[in-house]
């Protein structure tokens, strides 16, 4: 990408439409090329990772592989499968959306529709959302362990007089809640963006027709913002699907013979499985094919979702531009 730009600096070519400096400037030529090279390098990194995974993962992928529940020794490429991991990851992100979308959307509604812009509370909420987005994922894992499992879970067990820990141990529920806290900023920011993009005129028209503020929000603003909310949800899911650090101590299992049946069961997970396959394999050359295939499945999952989000967003922007 850098070469065509830098080699074609037409400073001496008077026929160009663009305004250019009159003299050919070596430094400009050189540094434009350099920044172009940096851009190119980043894109190359992205391309190399994706292509590497795609090429090497494709051959290991088969219907049997994605639909098999593996035996205890899942390092054997001939018999192993990743069905429980796909299901585990899907369940934990689904449960997460149930918690994160309502809270995220309501927060965004407050911030755009109700909050007095200058008020102290509004600024604190915004600061908290921004900070939540920057907390390291491993700290969320510790939080899940310290708060959900050791505090809420253990106290629930005590209240219910369970003889052995039911709530006071890692489970789908606690992992999902931990992820919900982590992805809250994603939903809030995306929803807020879509709410802000809705023209004031729509709200004004609704109010002028005698609708109350709540009615306006529920019947005029929210339907318009739906694509934005969906984008937020999808981005949150795609972010959460690949996260491993927050679930390390809150419910992921190294191996389970069965699929999870209850919210209090532990689960196997795609991302964690990639970690296990790449660091604990007895024979890395042998397991490479299933490792690549697992990575490909995870990447397809997260990227397909990301891509859908980008498409919805682009579509939404186009529609809103028409509205304005």
């Amino acid at each position: 990408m850098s070469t065509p730009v830098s080699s074609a600096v037409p400073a001496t070519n008077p026929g160009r439409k663009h305004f250019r400096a009159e003299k050919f400037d070596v430094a400009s030529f050189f540094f434009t090329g350099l920044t172009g090279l940096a851009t190119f390098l980043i894109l190359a990194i992205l391309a190399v990772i994706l292509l590497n995974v795609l090429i090497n993962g494709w051959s290991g992928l088969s219907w049997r592989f994605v639909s098999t529940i593996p035996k205890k020794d899942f390092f054997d490429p001939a018999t192993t499968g990743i069905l429980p991991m796909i299901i585990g990851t899907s369940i934990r992100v689904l449960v997460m959306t149930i918690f994160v979308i309502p809270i995220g959307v309501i927060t965004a509604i407050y911030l755009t529709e109700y909050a007095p812009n200058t008020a102290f509370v509004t600024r604190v909420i915004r600061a908290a959302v921004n900070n939540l987005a920057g907390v390291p994922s491993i700290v969320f894992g510790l939080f899940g362990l310290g708060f959900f499992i050791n505090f809420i879970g253990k106290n629930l067990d005590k209240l219910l007089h369970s003889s052995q820990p039911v709530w006071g141990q890692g489970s789908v529920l606690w992992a999902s809640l931990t992820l919900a806290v982590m992805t809250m900023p994603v939903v809030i920011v995306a929803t807020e963006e879509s709410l802000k993009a809705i023209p004031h005129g729509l709200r004004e028209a609704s109010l002028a027709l005698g609708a109350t503020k709540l009615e306006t929000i529920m019947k005029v603003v929210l339907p318009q913002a739906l694509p934005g909310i969906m984008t937020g949800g999808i981005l949150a899911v795609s972010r959460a699907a690949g996260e491993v650090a927050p679930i390390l101590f809150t419910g992921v299992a190294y191996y389970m013979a069965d699929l999870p049946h209850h919210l209090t069961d532990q689960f196997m997970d795609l991302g964690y499985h990639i970690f296990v396959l790449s660091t604990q394999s007895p024979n890395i050359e042998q397991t490479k094919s299933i490792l690549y295939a697992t990575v490909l499945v995870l990447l397809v999952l997260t990227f397909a979702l990301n891509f859908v989000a980008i498409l919805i967003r682009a579509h939404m922007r186009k529609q809103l531009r028409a509205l304005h």
Partner: protein
Amino acid sequence: MLMQNKTKRTQGWMGIRRGHRAHPAEWLAEKFIFLVSLTAIVMVFLIFAFIMREALPVFTGKMSSALVQPAISVNDIDKIPRVQLQAYLGLTDQELARMDKDTLKSLMEVKQEEQDDIPQNFRDNPDAKINTTEWRYMLLPHQWTGYSKPSYIWQPVGEIEKYNIIPLFIGSLKITLVGLLFAVPLAVGAAIYVSQLARPRLREVIKPAIEMLSGIPSVVVGFFALIVMATVLQNTFHYETRLNVFVAGIALGFAVIPVVFSISEDALTSVPASYTHAALALGSSKWQAAWKIVLPAALPGVFAATVLGFGRAVGETMIVLMVCSASVMSWSIFDSARSITTTIAAEMGEVVSGGVHYRILFMLGALLFVVTFLSNMAGEVIMHRLKSKLEGKR
């Protein structure tokens, strides 16, 4: 009317005065929405509170890891201070409050028997009497038996648990610095190119593509670094240890690039176009305008991007965990190192809940939280100031 109200938005909604009185249900809904929106604040508070709660004994010193402790006779139970008793028995505040005297006495007897069972060769080891969770053992080098000189050692498993956190800090710092040195020039260069020099149509393609990099899960980046990059880099640079700080840093850079890129790009685009136009009108080239006019104006934003990138890098877990995790105390980037995040992730699974090691890992988490919290705050404030300045609000 509308124009007048624009400065005082608090009065109505979007500058519109309400034509009718608020319905009770409306009022209730508003309060409910407000309460739900406080969740983010509550969560930040809870994260801090509950990590601190688990780590508290480390800060208050109510913990002892000493193997051999001066025995306290059961008869002295009333004479010694509660705090000393608590540390001696290794109890939490709640546990201590719940127990009556007889329970405490029987615990002390058990402790006494445990102490009697310790073999003689241990008893002679001076290190066995040390409570290694004191700050001076966690921060300063100590002359351990069997070592030639005072050293910083993180070795939480073994006969004598050593909890010096300095090697972990240096590990984190080294990996983060390598990551930033790799990522910041690339990301800022790309941000300059995309925001100032590239043609608009090219920009529309490149920007989402770079942002896609942030969509790659860190466990996949870690996998790529471990399986592909480590070998390629070793064959190129011919160093000894295959998995080292250098590989981890570069892989970490992949995760940091999108953060630094988007924020610097945001800062560069928020510089008013009139700046560039003026420079071009005076005869400067596009590059000169970008380098001498736009970049200096947006410099605080680039700095904020770096600070936020630092926060992201320090907290990154999976990449570092997969690529390098052996604790080696050295300044070379071609050795392995163990970061704070790696330590928490790798060791939390094997600790006794509520034990000394468990609490120290939570203490590390609390420190990590504080460091990232501060760097995020700093980044936010710088960005906010820059934007209001460029928009001419202040």
